[in-house]
């Protein structure tokens, strides 16, 4: 979600705050692909669109209170993480033991093999069980396709620390997947 047009974000946010509701549509178009990719990485396929829309509806409703202390992209990323956590909380309340079930995933009907879907489910479940900073570095690199120097900027760390975090995150994910077997 790194945007070279950060100033434009600020202008659009200001316009929105001044009552030009349409300014949000530009922000939506700009950030939709990345939010979608982030959500797709951790949420069952059939719920990706709904959760993504929930993120933007929440952003739309609370943008007026956005104080600009962080970048809009960072704020939106945090909001996305909250919505994902909320999604899993809601699911757990419905007594669905597995965060993602094969049955649901098969309902997608996108032609992918059951083996691959099972693998996706295992990885999504394992990712959900990782500590937040581990999950974040993996999502930024794999889902949002950020380079390590960009991740360092977003996470407020130096490159060495980020690469070390990346290695530990991969090791933790591997261990988590082995545990699930």
């Amino acid at each position, binding site marked *: 979600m790194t945007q070279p047009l950060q100033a434009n974000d600020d202008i659009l946010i200001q316009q929105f705050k001044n009552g030009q*509701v349409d300014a949000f549509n530009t922000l939506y178009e700009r950030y939709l692909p990345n939010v*979608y990719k982030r959500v797709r990485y951790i949420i069952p396929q059939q719920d990706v669109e709904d959760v993504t*829309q929930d993120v933007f*509806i929440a952003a*739309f409703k609370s943008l007026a209170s956005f104080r600009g202390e962080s970048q809009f992209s960072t704020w939106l990323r945090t909001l996305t993480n909250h919505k994902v956590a909320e999604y899993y909380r809601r699911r757990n309340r419905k007594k669905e033991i597995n965060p993602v079930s094969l049955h649901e995933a098969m309902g997608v009907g996108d032609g992918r093999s059951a083996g691959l879907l099972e693998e996706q489910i295992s*990885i999504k479940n394992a990712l959900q069980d990782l500590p937040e900073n581990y999950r974040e570095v993996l999502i930024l690199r*794999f*889902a949002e*396709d950020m380079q390590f120097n960009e991740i360092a900027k977003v996470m407020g760390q130096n490159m060495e620390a980020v690469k070390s975090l990346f290695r530990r995150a991969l090791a933790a994910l591997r261990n988590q997947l082995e545990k699930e077997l």
Partner: protein
Amino acid sequence: MKRSNENTQEYDDLLADFADRALSYEVENIESNLDEDLRDLQKMVLRLKHSLPNDPVEQATLKRMKNDFLIKSRSSSMRKQETPLMAFLNRMMQIEINPNIILTVGSMAVFIGVLVVAAFTTNTSSGTLIGTAGSGAQITGISIGAGIIFLLLMLWISRRK
């Protein structure tokens, strides 16, 4: 095996570099001249890349989502213009009531009802005979009974969660 700081950094760099090359489709296989742990982590990189591919989102999906969003955001803007009473009523209509809450409120209502009836019965039956034996014991008994029923109900509800 414990690594020195320098080795660990080299190790981190190798893995990060491998991930960069794997994600830009420059490598498809792990490198065999490395130690086992690093090879394992390289396998994880390839596993993630293959299982959860980072394909671009289809334009048709983005377009459809944008149209849906426009409808939702417009109705959300409309809701902002509602009076507080209308907003409250709308929220009340949309609340999804948890059956456990209904059961808890219901059992509390039964409990309170039993207490009220018990108190009323005791007062009317005791009449003017102040100090008659049994009236105090009667209300205590009813209260204990109602309390036990209430506790059993709560236990049953908590077991269902």
